[in-house]
């Protein structure tokens, strides 16, 4: 119950930040990626603001014995740089550049332009399912 509430608060703040920062507008996102053309630096401010706040949060973590309402921290432990990581990130960037949407803004935009955002989100889930299926077949 408390996990659900904290998750909802986090998601709502996240969605509000995306909308306020202009990330739910694909034209603005593509404008940021268009460094060789008519560059729009707004997203650098979004990323900068988010990273600064989170850098402070990361400094608080070692001083906490456990999270506020969970028994322990569940943080990524992998440190190896693999072809899978780089290849996946490269593919993601291509998809991001094509339509100017990444997962968060795509989902948040369901209230801004429902039909367009729904197509993106359904296709994204299909892509995730493809990876799951292929991995299931291989393992």
């Amino acid at each position, binding site marked *: 119950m408390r996990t659900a509430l904290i998750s909802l608060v986090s998601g709502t703040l996240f969605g509000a930040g995306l909308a306020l920062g202009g990330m739910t507008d694909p034209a603005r996102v593509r404008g940021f990626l268009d460094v060789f053309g008519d560059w729009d630096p707004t997203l650098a401010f979004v990323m900068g603001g988010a990273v600064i706040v989170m850098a402070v949060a990361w400094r608080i973590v070692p001083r906490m014995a456990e999270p506020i309402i969970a028994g322990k921290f569940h943080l990524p432990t992998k440190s190896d740089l693999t072809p899978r990581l780089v290849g996946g990130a490269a593919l993601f960037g291509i998809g*991001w550049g094509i339509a100017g949407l990444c997962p968060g803004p795509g989902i948040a935009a369901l209230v801004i332009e429902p039909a367009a955002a729904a197509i993106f989100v359904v296709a994204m889930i299909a892509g995730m399912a493809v990876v799951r299926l292929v991995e299931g077949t291989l393992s």
Partner: protein
Amino acid sequence: MSLPGFPEAAPVAGLAGGVLIGLAAAVMLLGLGRIAGVSGLSAKAVGLGGSGIARSGAWMFVIGLPLGAFVVMLATGGIQASFADPITLAIAGLVVGIGTRLGSGCTSGHGVCGVSRLSARSIVATLTFMATGIATVAIMNALGLEVL
């Protein structure tokens, strides 16, 4: 307020939005001890792996995203946005879905949470998807492919 030389830029709104995103990720980190990675949490919500959080928690986070955008819509009287055509959106969504699962994250998990943690994996992933995103837009512009 505008940025000299960049009439289109919205630095103050951008920074404010970024701070809210950072707070959102901090709530997840300090509250639940987890990474606020949208691709991992949405994969978890629909039963395709991803984050180790309870599925109900993943759903609540995902539902919060449009809810938060809706609050901003109400508060500001509307959000400006233009989207690509359905086929472009479908191709982009598919590639984003595959890429984020293979690459273990997206702009939020790697770009915000991982970079601020100085994770080598996240810094490499972020530099990679920024580079291919920039290249994709540049190539599409060079080919005269206007999607918006």
